[in-house]
């Protein structure tokens, strides 16, 4: 009896279960297919790339496109530029942001609420709304077409975010830790540096990663504040791929996709490793911001 009813329920549920997995599979394909297509286009030779009908599963993959794109000094230079800019911006905003977040998260003082509001409003600041002012400042300071211009301008979106997320992080730490440190005669800065900062390491990793990704992906300021190919970041280098780059008439899509995979793969790996923390950081920043 019991077996029969269980089976009946199973039978009744099966169609909806199948539908569920069909929907699930469609969502997964939708999310991943474009990236699959970039990889596929990166590993096929041009003869297959520019053939109709389209070949979906490459028969003999080759790394020719990767070799070609890495052989150009410009792309390697762009990788280096992006690493320098994103790395510097991340370290700067972590250092400056952690101190600011500590002040806002752990101290009660007059004026902290307006400062919090200013920081919060900056997290939603559209980059375009300060472009005119930034552009003139950067030319005046002689920073135009220098990587320093990018480090300087990227702080506008990495710093407020860093302060905001780390502030919520500092607030969650127990108060007795600090008090114990003060009783032991530690100075405020020692307390911050030796006790609070190490405890907030997980938060620093998450915000640092998010800041790095934001700086690595930036396009508007990089496009506006640099001019010569040797100052290009990876987003610019990939934007400027042209028929001339490949020496043909058609845009060298294969090489461009190879470059895309090279630039994206580390990000995807990092994202997958720190998946949980990134989701927590993104939703915390968003829900509370």
């Amino acid at each position, binding site marked *: 009896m019991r077996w029969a009813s269980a089976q009946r329920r199973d039978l009744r549920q099966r169609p909806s279960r199948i539908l*569920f997995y069909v929907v*699930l599979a469609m*969502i*997964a394909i939708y*999310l*991943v297919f*474009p*990236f699959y*297509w*970039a990889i596929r286009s990166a590993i096929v030779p041009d003869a297959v790339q*520019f053939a*109709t009908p*389209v070949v979906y599963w490459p028969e003999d993959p080759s790394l020719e496109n990767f070799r070609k794109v890495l052989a150009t000094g410009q792309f390697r230079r762009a990788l280096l530029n992006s690493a320098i800019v994103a790395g510097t911006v991340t370290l700067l905003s972590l250092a*400056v942001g952690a101190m*600011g977040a*500590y*002040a*806002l998260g752990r101290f*009660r*003082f007059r004026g*902290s609420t307006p400062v*919090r509001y200013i*920081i919060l409003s*900056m997290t939603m*600041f*559209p*980059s*375009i*709304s300060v472009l*005119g*002012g930034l*552009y*003139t*400042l950067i*030319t005046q300071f002689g920073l135009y077409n220098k990587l320093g211009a990018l480090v300087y301008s990227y*702080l506008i979106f990495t710093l*407020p975010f860093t302060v905001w997320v780390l502030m919520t992080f500092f607030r969650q730490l127990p108060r007795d830790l600090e008090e114990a440190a003060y009783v032991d005669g530690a100075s405020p800065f020692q307390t*911050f540096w030796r006790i609070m900062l190490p405890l907030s390491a997980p938060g620093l990793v998450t915000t640092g990663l998010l800041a790095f990704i934001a700086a*690595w*992906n930036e*396009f*508007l300021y990089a*496009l*506006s504040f640099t001019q010569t190919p040797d100052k290009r970041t*990876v*987003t610019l280098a*990939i*934007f400027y791929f042209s028929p001339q780059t490949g020496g043909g008439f058609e845009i060298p*899509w294969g090489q461009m*996709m190879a470059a*895309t995979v090279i*630039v*994206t793969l580390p*990000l995807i790996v990092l*994202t997958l490793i720190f*998946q949980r923390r*990134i989701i927590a950081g*993104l939703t915390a920043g*968003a*829900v509370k911001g």
Partner: protein
Amino acid sequence: MGRPVIAEPRRAALPLRRWQAMTLAERQAWLAWLFLLPALLVVVGVAMVPLAQTVYFSFTDKRLGALRPAQWVGLENFRFLLTDPLWWTAVKVTVQFTLITVAFEFLLGLLIALVVNSRFPGRGPMRAAMLVPWAIPTVLSAQMWKWMYNDIFGVINDLLKRAGLIEQNIAWLARPDTSLLAVASIDIWKTTPFVALLLLAGLQVIPDELYEAATVDGANKVRQFFTITLPLLRPAIVVALIFRTLDALRVFDVFYVLFGARPDMQTMAVYAQNYIVAFSDVGYGSAISVAIFLVIAIFVVAYVTTLKVEVQT
């Protein structure tokens, strides 16, 4: 001779003594500002000053590299903006893009969030797959899709032809009637997972007991969705909608990669950037920036009044 010798150490000791005379609260305040100082300097230097300058320039005829200094022109730039057909095209394109993408991202994101919220084998990899579009830089995903939309060798035309939906290849990105949908589809692909993650975080705090009680009371799944899920998800929905709208209104990257400064497919941000950088017309470009700010503000006010958001910090 003797007096300065005595006075010197006293003066040096004064700050320390003042520090010792302070109450704990006063000391805390001093320390807090000290810790905040670097961040405040950056905020002022990177955001406040450029913002003030942008607003100021919007009332001048400032040009970069001009020999004569900028002159105050009052509301001249804004008067010109009101009758500038290219600006209004940019507003139309941006607002249409915003409405399409936010609507799709919300509905699709809600569907994905509901699906991923149920327990099933392979849930971990599924959540991981959701982060893939988000992790790819917008410029690169735009290029990936540009290649997929290619009129001759593109995979999208090929798929649609195989499915029998179209007979001839379509130049999706060149045709005026398909350009907007094509670019919207890229943004929807990239950002829907993010919306889904936000909504998923909201779903996960709804207690299971509510659904169990509702099932006992005989409410079916659809009823449960409208009476439990949707009301309790409201805060997350509001946040997602506001975030996505603000982002969509200032969209730049994906349009610039696909269309450059093509007059019929410029967004407000592309139009402003083009004036400031390509034409060096900082005055008019800044006026456009200020106008963008106002358009965004209108949307924020509309949201806050219709959804009755409680602002909290």
